[in-house]
């Protein structure tokens, strides 16, 4: 691992481009807003922080050369999922839940599991030699993407649409009051 140290630092030395700066900015805001999601007491604050986090992830998708997925992320997550969350938070009474303390007793095993999981991921990431070192060049045009999606992946696409239909019907049935 020590032998690989110089080339990793070469990355950092050559990484003074604008793209790197944007990546650091987006990544920092993503991490901070994700922490706010977990730490905030009020679910409304968590929902707003999650919205910030999802927008930053969409920006990272643009950096990675896939603007279509960034648009999907904004539409589906920020436009639909978060509005659904905020709507449910508005319907439910969250004032009592907002007073709950963040950490209760007996969280030591949980924290141990978290540290173990994080250390494992970090070790695996830093020791792997098989990552491609080519630059992020994007994957081609939207036309090619949609051609692949609607030819090779047509069956999963149809299955996904059926799943969405089932979710639609299921959500209506579950949320309906018994009186109807």
């Amino acid at each position, binding site marked *: 691992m020590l032998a690989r140290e110089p080339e990793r630092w070469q990355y950092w030395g050559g990484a003074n481009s604008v793209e790197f700066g944007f990546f650091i900015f987006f990544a920092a805001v993503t991490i901070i807003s994700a922490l706010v999601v977990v730490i905030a007491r009020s679910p409304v604050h*968590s*929902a707003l922080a999650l919205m910030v986090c999802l927008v930053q992830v969409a920006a990272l998708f643009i950096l*990675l050369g*896939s603007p279509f997925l960034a648009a999907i992320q904004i539409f589906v997550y920020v436009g639909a*999922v978060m509005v659904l969350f905020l709507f449910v938070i508005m319907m439910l009474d969250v004032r009592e839940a907002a007073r709950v303390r963040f950490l209760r007793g007996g969280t030591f095993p949980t924290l141990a599991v978290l540290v173990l999981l994080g250390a494992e991921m*970090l070790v695996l990431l830093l020791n*792997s030699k098989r990552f491609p070192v080519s630059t992020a060049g994007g*994957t081609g045009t939207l036309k090619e993407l949609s051609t692949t999606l609607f030819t090779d992946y047509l069956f999963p696409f149809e299955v996904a649409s059926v799943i969405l239909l089932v979710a639609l019907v299921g959500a209506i049935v579950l*949320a309906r009051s018994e009186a109807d």
Partner: protein
Amino acid sequence: MVPLSMYLALGAALFIIGVAGVLLRRNVLIVLMSLELMLNSVNVNLVAFSSYLSDFRGQIIAIFVIAITAAEVAIALGILVALMRNKATLDVDDITIMKG
């Protein structure tokens, strides 16, 4: 240029934060939001690999993940609304009707 391992490290950090939210918080709404965080970290990894390997399939799987997530959130919040009608609590420790 940003090395791929930094995107993967970002994904790992987001995943850890999501796991922490699921395991540490007791508010069921925040547990659901932490699940969203974990799914997003997986999407970051998928799109990063897709971009660095010049392969479409990562993006396509990410599209499916987003679609399934939308379905999951709709069902989960429907269950939550139905549950709140019967038992007015948001604490996951109190929701033990099925004795799981």
